[in-house]
């Protein structure tokens, strides 16, 4: 495929789109589908057909529009008068009214304001096509400029040049660790080994996180293009997407996308008539959180028990089947086509100096608007929570925001004006993590929050190393005791000691970060723990003696 052929496909798609007077986009991501979006789309299509309006109205299934709490979402666009209406909580009974409104006045009853900060304050790179294109049609992706980065890179750039753009962009891993992508790519690229692999980590196991799922369901070709660019830059010919089996819709769309991309010659042998070949296979994870850890993930692909192994050797040196392996998160790879298209410098100008670009967050908890948002790095937590999220409902008071899931921490009011960056969040006792953000109001108990995450770590520990396996069990027991009001000061002291041991001696990131929710809530909300302690003089004496 040449650049001209690509542009021809894009132009044809554009002509097709322009031939319609109205575009009706129905969200077909998992969340809206679970509230009946598929039926709405079928009914809409049928109504259009019954009225003989197929040539004027284009009913199209698209990916996630972000405001998942208000689903099913339907957007009606009329390019002629530049109107665009978003409808929320649409039901099958609303279809005829919705159809009637297409040519007339909007249905105010179901309208969702799009001028609100939830939409206006976002900046989209990873999600630029999400909610706009049909994820099951490769032509839709091409029409938005998809695969031009790959074709341009293969026909006009050396692997080193692609790598340089990624290094210049300052892109850091979005899977949690924040390791500079350029450095990791360079390590793999430098190796003279004949066989190398690229792995896309789509295991997304953090409770409440669904950023990666949304990208995979809404814009799967973006990931394939990102992986192909990565493979070209580091010199790999084979790629794996490791995705959890709990995401059947994403798996189905990925499979379809791989078939389409192979047929169009973006994957396979001798892509774009160049010597570069790249093939992608999908591997399903069985739902263990620890299989998102890179060494465990690699074991799992190799057919072994998903259990971490000591690093070094890092996967970039000895990974899958002992070959140098580049492993990146879904969102990291989703940034790559845009970086190659617009240049590393452009990406670097977004966000802050040490945290460039944007970040997708799954906003949840006690907040008016929950859903998926993409914001530039450096935005403050207050802007996210009060403006984009619409603040805390029912006039309650904000208490804490949890970022980073079971590996992260809880930040109080006084940290709200802090910019969202890898290093500031870490210094405050939390982490950027993969993008879960849970807002808590005055009714939440911080001991319960810590206990919830400890329960998660305890059940998800792989059991390989003693401090994580037995330590999280004991910490969970102590937190339960504290929550029930049965603990003493000695128990709290023991809990803190266990936090140190588990953090410092565990083998992998799961154990090393498992104490974070406890440590951060103890740091900012210690009084909540102490209020629950019972004062038992005999216990105190034992500690003293």
């Amino acid at each position: 495929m040449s650049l001209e052929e690509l542009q021809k496909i894009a132009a044809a798609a554009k002509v097709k789109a322009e031939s319609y007077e109205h575009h009706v986009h129905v969200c077909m991501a998992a969340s809206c589908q679970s509230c009946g979006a598929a039926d709405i789309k079928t009914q809409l299509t049928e109504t259009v057909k019954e009225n003989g309006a197929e040539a004027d109205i284009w009913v199209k299934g698209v990916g996630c529009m972000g405001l998942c709490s208000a689903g099913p979402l339907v957007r009606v666009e009329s390019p002629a008068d530049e109107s665009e209406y978003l409808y929320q909580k649409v039901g099958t009974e609303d279809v005829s009214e919705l159809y009637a409104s297409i040519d007339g006045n909007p249905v105010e009853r179901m309208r969702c304001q799009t001028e609100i900060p939830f939409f206006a304050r976002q900046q989209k790179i990873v999600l630029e096509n999400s909610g706009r294109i049909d994820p099951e049609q490769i032509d839709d992706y091409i029409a938005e400029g998809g695969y031009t980065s790959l074709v341009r890179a293969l026909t006009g750039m050396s692997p080193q040049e692609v790598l340089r753009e990624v290094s210049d962009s300052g892109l850091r891993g979005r899977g949690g660790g924040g390791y500079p992508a350029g450095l990791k790519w360079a390590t793999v690229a430098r190796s003279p080994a004949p066989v190398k692999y690229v792995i896309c980590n789509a295991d997304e196991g953090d409770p409440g996180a669904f950023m990666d799922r949304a990208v995979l369901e809404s814009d799967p070709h973006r990931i394939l293009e990102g992986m192909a660019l990565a493979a070209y830059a580091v010199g790999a010919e084979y790629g794996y997407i490791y995705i959890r089996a709990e995401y059947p819709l994403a798996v189905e769309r990925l499979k379809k996308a791989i078939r389409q991309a192979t047929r169009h010659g973006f994957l396979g042998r001798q892509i774009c008539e160049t010597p570069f070949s790249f093939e992608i296979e999908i591997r399903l994870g069985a739902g263990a959180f620890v299989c998102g850890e890179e060494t465990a993930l690699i074991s799992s692909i190799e057919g072994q028990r998903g259990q971490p192994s000591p690093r070094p050797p890092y996967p970039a040196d000895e990974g899958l089947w002992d070959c140098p392996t580049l492993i990146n998160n879904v969102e990291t790879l989703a940034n790559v086509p845009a970086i190659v298209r617009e240049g590393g410098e452009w990406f670097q100008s977004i966000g802050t100096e040490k945290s460039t670009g944007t970040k997708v967050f799954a906003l949840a908890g006690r907040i008016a608007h929950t859903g998926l948002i993409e914001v530039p790095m450096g935005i403050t937590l207050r802007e996210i929570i009060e403006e984009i999220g619409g603040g805390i409902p029912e006039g309650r008071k904000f208490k804490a925001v949890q970022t980073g899931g079971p590996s992260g921490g809880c930040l109080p009011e006084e940290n709200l004006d802090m910019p969202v960056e890898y290093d500031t969040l870490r210094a405050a006792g939390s982490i950027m993590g993969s993008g879960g953000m849970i807002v808590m109001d005055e009714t939440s108990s911080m001991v319960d929050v810590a206990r919830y995450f400890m329960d998660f770590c305890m059940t998800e520990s792989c059991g390989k190393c003693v401090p994580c396996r037995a330590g999280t069990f004991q910490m969970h027991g102590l937190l339960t005791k504290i929550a029930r009001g049965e603990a003493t000061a000695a128990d709290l002291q023991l809990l803190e000691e266990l936090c140190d041991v588990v953090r410092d001696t565990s083998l992998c990131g799961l154990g090393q970060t498992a104490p974070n929710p406890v440590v951060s809530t103890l740091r900012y909300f210690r009084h909540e723990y102490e209020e629950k302690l019972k004062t038992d003089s005999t216990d105190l004496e034992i500690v003293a003696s």
Partner: protein
Amino acid sequence: MPRYPAPPNAPAKVRVVTLRIDGQDIGAREDESVLDVAAEHDIRIPTLCYLDGLSTWGGCRMCMVEIAGSPKLLPACSTQVAEGMEITTNSDKLKNYRRMILELLFAERNHVCSVCVSNGHCDLQDLAVECGMDFVRVPYRNAPYEIDSSHDLFRVDHNRCVLCTRCVRVCDEIEGAHTWDIMGRGVECQVITDLNTPWGESDSCTGCGKCVQVCPTGALVKKGTAAGEMEKRDDFLPYLTQMRGNR
């Protein structure tokens, strides 16, 4: 079991590095682990899952050491020495951590030493003595575990298992039978024979008894031994691996 053989294009020549362990200046080959180098110089670092002759597992975390300049503690068994390393093996912090890890192990299962056939010949017991762990502050888990006596010669008592995976590794790597493996997650982990069938019904077990000899506690024992009678010999392993390597 993930194994990391040397990459095919590794340099043939191995350099010698100098380092310092607990203030002692030491020269070592750069492909050796901190644990091996320390042992060669009679510096004792406590270990439980490690066994000379088997692949390195890195699960017990008893051998954690401090390395100057590294913010993290590192396991001596799976950390290679490097030029200029300054290693501390016995700071107060490390001693405290080791005690706590042992406490966690003792509380996890039901280690009742007085009635155990391995009483007096048990690595876990010896470590507790060595590390000065004389009482357990965390509550005992008190989970009931089964004893499987279905094998003609041996018995497995899960109450005493520390999940070091020595049995899994010796059976897979030395005997080649891979009868043992682990099932479950977290504290629910358990060693199993075949696909969790009783040991006596295992199709793959050859009855060689290597797993019993390498088990550090009274979890795998010979039948017909009374309390304190089960002595084990795991020193055959290095010879075995060496002999095979020479062939």
